[in-house]
């Protein structure tokens, strides 16, 4: 069971720990790093205790830092960089017509590789490139097979002005099998370690497209995709206009329409051992990105999406306007402890799968990413 959380925010990285002795069971901030800097994502690598954090400096670009001692001290490592853009390539975001920068604008996904590849990391970025490091972040290689795929040129920006790759799921059964999700470009799978890719968003529905395009896999906007480690053929997606679940390794997706109080949101989490359980933090809709009726709630299913419980105990139920971003909800390796953080700087922890919640802080900077060590 994890007693430590890392929280990446608009203004720095926070370490949160569960108290011992007199403060047993109380979670509190114990360390701060990179204060005032924009920390877009944090990865505690459970394979070896390393921690990685991505910073997005407004002026100086994206940087990556690594800690070998559980987040106590940090050293810079390499950030993923795009190769030189070839002369004459006309690469534009289809909606705006603006050129796609071949430049890492944001680190939006950071995941450990398979346990058989202890030095491997995967990194998703805006404007849509996927990178892999084989040496714990000392160097990065763009996965050119996906970047050069003709359908990549059709990807569009969602909430951001550029397309972005925000979810990476490495199959625990097979290091070569990796699924990724893109806003907006559907979900993709490689079965050969990134040499080739196929789009895997059959069954997702895009309500924001005209009828004849609504089921086009490459226009889908999955906000976040997660995979159940004990049953890797089960994946969950919180999509722009709904929740989708696959039970066949992303070959097909089924829309889940029973989510309460709404099907809009960004975050989804699945426990390591139970593919039928998942948590979501819904908002009203894409046009109203606030909790319904000012009540912060977590929606939980325990039966694969047939029904949902709305969890409220310990969460504000009056005039609360917290929004939870896609990487800001996490479950620990036991599947018992959960935490989520919000755009208004609230952070809650549950030690009973969401039945009740403890407020850790209501005054953090806007939270982008919450992860158990």
């Amino acid at each position, binding site marked *: 069971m994890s007693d430590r959380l890392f929280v990446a925010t608009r203004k720095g990285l926070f370490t949160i720990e569960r108290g011992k002795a007199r403060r047993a069971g109380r979670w509190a901030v114990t360390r701060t790093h990179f204060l005032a800097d924009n920390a877009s994502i944090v990865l505690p690598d459970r394979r070896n205790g390393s921690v990685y954090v991505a910073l997005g400096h407004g*002026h100086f670009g994206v940087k990556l830092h690594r800690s070998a001692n559980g987040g106590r001290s940090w050293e810079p490592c390499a950030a993923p960089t795009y190769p030189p853009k070839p002369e004459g390539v006309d690469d534009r975001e289809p909606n705006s017509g603006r050129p796609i920068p071949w430049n890492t604008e944001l680190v939006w996904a950071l995941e450990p590789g398979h346990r058989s590849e202890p030095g491997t990391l995967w990194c998703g970025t805006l404007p849509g490139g996927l990178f892999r490091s084989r040496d714990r972040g000392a160097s990065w290689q763009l996965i050119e097979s996906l970047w050069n795929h003709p359908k990549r040129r059709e990807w569009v920006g969602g909430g951001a002005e550029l397309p972005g790759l925000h979810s990476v799921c490495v199959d625990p059964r097979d290091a070569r099998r990796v699924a990724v999700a893109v806003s907006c470009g559907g979900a993709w799978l490689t079965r050969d370690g990134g040499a080739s890719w196929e789009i895997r968003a059959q069954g997702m529905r895009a309500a924001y497209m005209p009828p004849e395009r609504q089921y086009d896999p490459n226009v889908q906007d999955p906000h976040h995709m997660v995979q159940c480690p004990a049953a890797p053929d089960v994946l969950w997606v919180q999509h722009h206009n709904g929740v989708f679940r696959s039970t066949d390794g992303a070959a097909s997706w089924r829309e889940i329409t029973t989510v309460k109080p709404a099907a809009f949101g960004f975050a989804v989490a699945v426990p390591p051992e139970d593919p039928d359980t998942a948590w979501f933090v819904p908002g009203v809709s894409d046009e109203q990105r606030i909790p319904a009726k000012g009540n912060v709630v977590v929606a939980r299913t325990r039966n694969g999406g047939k029904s949902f419980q709305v969890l409220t105990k310990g969460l504000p139920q009056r005039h609360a306007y917290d929004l939870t971003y896609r990487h800001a909800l996490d479950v620990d390796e036991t599947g018992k402890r959960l935490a989520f953080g919000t755009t208004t700087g609230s952070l809650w922890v549950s030690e009973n799968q969401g039945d009740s919640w403890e407020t850790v802080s209501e005054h953090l900077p806007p939270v982008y990413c919450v992860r158990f060590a």
Partner: protein
Amino acid sequence: MPHVTFTQNIQRHVSCPETEAEGRTVREVLDRVFAANPRARDYVLDDQGAVRRHMVVFVDGRQIRDRTQLTDPVPADGEVCVMQALSGG
């Protein structure tokens, strides 16, 4: 030889002491500076080697025109200033 200075704000992230570097263009001068201080390069230039969107470079008080190729000339006794733009904060 051209004299090169950096915004104070960059020093919090990577040390960029003022220095002198040979070169007839902004590219040549900065290449020399970054050859001696490789970590600083990515703080000023993007993945394509252009000046980052929210950075600005001045030569003798005039903002450079070619932010992509950095071909603006630098006099032998030129003063090169690498600054932050007010945007991007």
